């Protein structure tokens, strides 16, 4: 690896990977269990026997053609959810709701009145989105204590249901989405399905240190780790995450998924239990870029209940097929080449840039000079908003309430002490400190100014003619849980959000696309960051990239072998796909 940190510019550093990791898996290997990603020249042949491994678009076509019914699909997904319970991906499985929705969907299909691409498609929703009649916990004792059941649906949930999607359940997360591992919620950590993949296991066998396999499972990343695990383990076809500093893209990268953080203001936050209102965006986790585009097409647009959504009408998202990238200009931010970046990710990043360059795109090094202030700035703004947003959890209207009734103040204190974990309480304390009259100017206002500088960095770069930025999503591939918890939540969050959080600061759309497997057989994703509200352009480029890299499908047959029938669908002899 010829990457001299100190001297070389990013551009010159691009090298091809000489050996080791399985960056491009031959199509034949993919075919074994699950079909490859998007249809088209290389993925159009549907020789697989399974349905669950398919993309949303494929299964949607199968539903329309009657090769499978929504109820069958729903039951298959439910059985996998049960099978993969140990992953801890779901906090609540809404089996009855899903089956009922499937039944209704089936009726619609029978009448030929399907509601659209999502009709009958199993989806999962992160447990910080309000779901009417279904318990919503934020993985916190504060809401779980009394079993908080929202009386309304988040706008994004409602939009999915209006399209006929089947809600399989609510997925696990870090408490109130504060974390980057999905390890810090009251329901315990989420396990990365790749821990049990054939790809990873085989690599480990080669190294064979006879470690206890069970204790060596990997984290999913977070905070939308439950959603990532749910999609990755084939329990659903798409899941909602939330993304405040990278919480959708980070687990997507670790779980080999596409993780989309749309532009701030494109998708309604109404009903999303907030972490940082000015940065939160509902995120989308899917197995391919096309699927993310379909879901975004359903979710995007003005919501009268969220004043920060754009007023302009949003056109339907149809990704044009991109064959020529020669007119594209890809920016490589030099500040993202940090010493902490693993050599493997660095190599893949270089390789991706080379790929674009070799196909005729202009690839240039760009500078985002305020990047290094991002983490500190984010810390101040995030904790301040957290302190404010968490003030409502006082035990009065809903959620946990302690037994102490000496005084209202004592009740507040004990309720919040019992309801929140250390991470949440720590952030509340810091945030309140930054908001004190004596500190406001020195911390909050300064952080806001830095945020503006960070946002302006992107404006400058995009104004210079760059179409998208190409960066790593994470420093490395997923690490074992035992490794991860050696550092505290705050350190981890600061480290892990490094490449992702600037997009939240600037409100830009960003997507993590899985590129290849590491030496250890684990997914590595790269991130594209686009211009504000150019989500479609961003996804178009991401899809082109996805097609080039042919990321391998996770092979979970060992995990599922005793329920192979679940994956079989004899009816699916041929599914024709229209694009």
């Amino acid at each position, binding site marked *: 690896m010829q990457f001299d940190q100190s001297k070389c510019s990013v551009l010159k550093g691009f090298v091809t990977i000489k050996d080791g990791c399985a960056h491009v898996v031959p199509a034949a290997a993919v075919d074994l269990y699950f079909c490859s990603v998007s249809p088209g020249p290389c993925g159009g042949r549907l020789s697989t026997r399974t349905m669950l491994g398919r993309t949303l678009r494929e299964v949607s076509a199968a539903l329309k053609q009657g090769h499978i019914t929504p109820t069958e699909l729903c039951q298959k997904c439910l059985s996998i959810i049960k099978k993969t319970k140990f992953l801890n991906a779901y906090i609540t499985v809404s089996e009855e709701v899903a089956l009922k929705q499937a039944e209704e969907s089936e009726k619609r299909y029978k009448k030929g009145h399907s509601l659209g691409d999502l009709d009958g498609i199993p989806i999962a929703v992160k447990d910080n989105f309000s779901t009417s009649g279904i318990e919503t916990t934020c993985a916190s004792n504060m*809401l779980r204590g009394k079993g908080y059941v929202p009386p309304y649906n988040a706008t994004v949930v409602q939009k999915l249901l209006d399209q006929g999607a089947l809600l399989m359940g609510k997925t696990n997360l870090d408490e109130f989405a504060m974390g980057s591992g999905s390890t810090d919620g009251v329901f315990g950590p989420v396990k990365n399905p790749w821990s049990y993949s054939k790809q990873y296991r085989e690599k480990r066998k080669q190294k064979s240190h006879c470690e206890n396999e069970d204790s060596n499972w990997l984290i999913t990343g977070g905070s939308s780790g439950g959603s990532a695990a749910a999609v990755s383990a084939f329990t659903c076809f798409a899941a909602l995450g939330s993304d405040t500093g990278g919480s959708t893209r980070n687990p997507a990268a670790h779980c080999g998924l596409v993780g989309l953080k749309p532009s701030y203001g494109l998708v309604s936050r109404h009903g999303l239990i907030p972490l940082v209102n000015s940065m939160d965006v509902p995120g989308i986790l899917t197995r391919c870029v096309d699927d993310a585009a379909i879901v975004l097409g359903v979710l995007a647009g003005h919501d009268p*209940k969220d004043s*920060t959504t754009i007023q302009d009408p949003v056109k339907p998202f149809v990704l044009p097929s991109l064959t020529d990238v020669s007119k594209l200009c890809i920016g490589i931010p030099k500040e993202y080449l940090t010493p902490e970046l693993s050599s493997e990710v660095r190599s893949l990043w270089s390789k991706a840039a080379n790929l674009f360059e070799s196909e005729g795109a202009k690839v240039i090094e760009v500078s985002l000079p305020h990047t290094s202030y991002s983490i500190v700035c984010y810390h101040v703004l995030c904790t*301040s908003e957290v302190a*404010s947003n968490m*003030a409502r959890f006082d035990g009065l209207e809903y959620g946990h309430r302690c037994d102490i009734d000496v005084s209202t103040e004592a009740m507040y204190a004990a309720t919040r002490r019992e309801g929140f974990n250390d991470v949440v309480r720590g952030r509340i304390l810091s945030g309140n400190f930054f908001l004190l009259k004596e500190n406001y100017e020195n911390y909050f206002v300064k952080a806001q100014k830095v945020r503006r500088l960070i946002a302006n960095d992107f404006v400058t770069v995009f104004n210079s003619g760059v179409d998208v930025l190409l960066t790593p999503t994470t420093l490395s591939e997923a690490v074992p849980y035992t490794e991860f918890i050696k550092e505290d939540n705050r350190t981890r969050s600061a480290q892990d959000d490094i490449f992702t959080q600037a997009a939240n600061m600037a409100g830009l759309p960003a997507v993590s696309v899985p590129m290849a497997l590491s030496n250890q057989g684990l997914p590595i994703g790269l991130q594209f960051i686009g211009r504000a509200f150019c989500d479609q352009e961003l996804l178009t480029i991401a899809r082109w990239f996805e097609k080039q890299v042919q990321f391998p499908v996770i092979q979970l047959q060992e995990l599922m072998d005793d329920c192979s029938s679940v994956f079989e669908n004899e009816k699916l002899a041929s599914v024709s796909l229209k694009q």
Partner: protein
Amino acid sequence: MAAPMLRLCCPGRRWALACIDGCSRHRRGAPNGCTSSRKRGQSSVAQQPFITAQKPRKGEHEWAAVVGLEIHAQISSKSKLFSGSQVHFAAPPNSLVSFFDASLPGTLPVLNRRCVEAAVMTGLALNCRINKKSLFDRKHYFYADLPAGYQITQQRLPIAVNGSLVYSFCAGKNRSQVINKTARVKQIQLEQDSGKSLHDDLRSQTLIDLNRAGVGLLEVVLEPDMSCGEEAATAVRELQLILQALGTSQANMAEGQLRVDANISVHHPGEPLGVRTEVKNLNSARFLAKAIDYEIQRQINELENGGEILNETRSFDSKLGCTIPMRDKEGKQDYRFMPEPNLPPLLLYDTESLPAGADPQQVIDIDRIREQLPELPSVTREKLVQQYGMLPEHSFTLLNEVGLLEFFQNVMKETRAEPKKVTSWVLNTLLGFLKQQNLAVSESPVTPSALAELLNLLDRKAISSSAAKQNWKRFR
């Protein structure tokens, strides 16, 4: 001594000004109840508190009082400031509460256009500069009737600034001299009302009613340009009339639609202002004047006895007639203001800046609101004086008594009697009677038509004046 002597009539009602004879017996008194604490100027204070406050006996230091006001007026709107719940006084507890009002997690504020228009209209009526860009902030404090743990207000950049409130009162021996005073309006801000806490001391419980939580408020901040309770009460009364004329608030103090906090300090003229106290939640014009005058005198007494004034929040005990420190265990609150991230800046336009092709439903045009401004009370009074040759002080009384102007105008419509005669009958005979009976104008046993008929008979000399006065109550 310029400060005029004012009279507040008839305890129990809301008339701040009544310039007619016959009710001067209800002379505004000094703070009573806690009078034992007063040591100086006792005798004159009892009669003329405001003068005493500023002009003590010779040889003593002169004291001047400075009074500023924060007035919260509930906006008269169908729904709340940031939610679709209805606004109603006296609805069953917790029957007008949306998910947002109850601060359910994930709910977001959506600004009510009507409330913005009301704020702009009020700002224009108070000669304010309307900010074309204003911002919303969160003000944090924990309280049971504040479900979100913060109130959304406009701390940094309010919707209207730098206005003035002109208020007048009648002074002089015959109360025939109209004196105009001006209180500067520092700002008008839009903010949420809180819910209501009902403390059940017996069971040591607090019951929460969120019907009021999130109702739109206009906070009008008056600079410390007033110097006594009477001035403050008169300014508030004028504001009340303006809000009612605009229809932006019903401004009924008894129903809590208008609530006043007063900032009070005393100092020696020529010296820096003294430490101020804040007297909170004054809910009648009479208590407002009383509380301020009491507080002024208390501060003077405190200072003259070598004490010091604490920057504290006090409340007015209307039974005892004195102000008492509010329980504030935590010391001074730090509200930890921060920008409300869920509301973009509020942008207003005028005819010039209105974007071409803008959806009228999406933009607010200040100039259009200006065109729609109704007649303000000062203009109405002027018209009465000009149209009917009425004495200015009579025009004040007609407007100050709820419903009296309408009564007067209805009588005028149906009678050929001289306006002066009608004025005299309405203000002296009728109003005197109503006050004696403790009745509101709307409860008058005599209708405008009946009075008009009586005056016609009188005009035709069908009955004598004395007979009319004796028997007028029978006309119904």
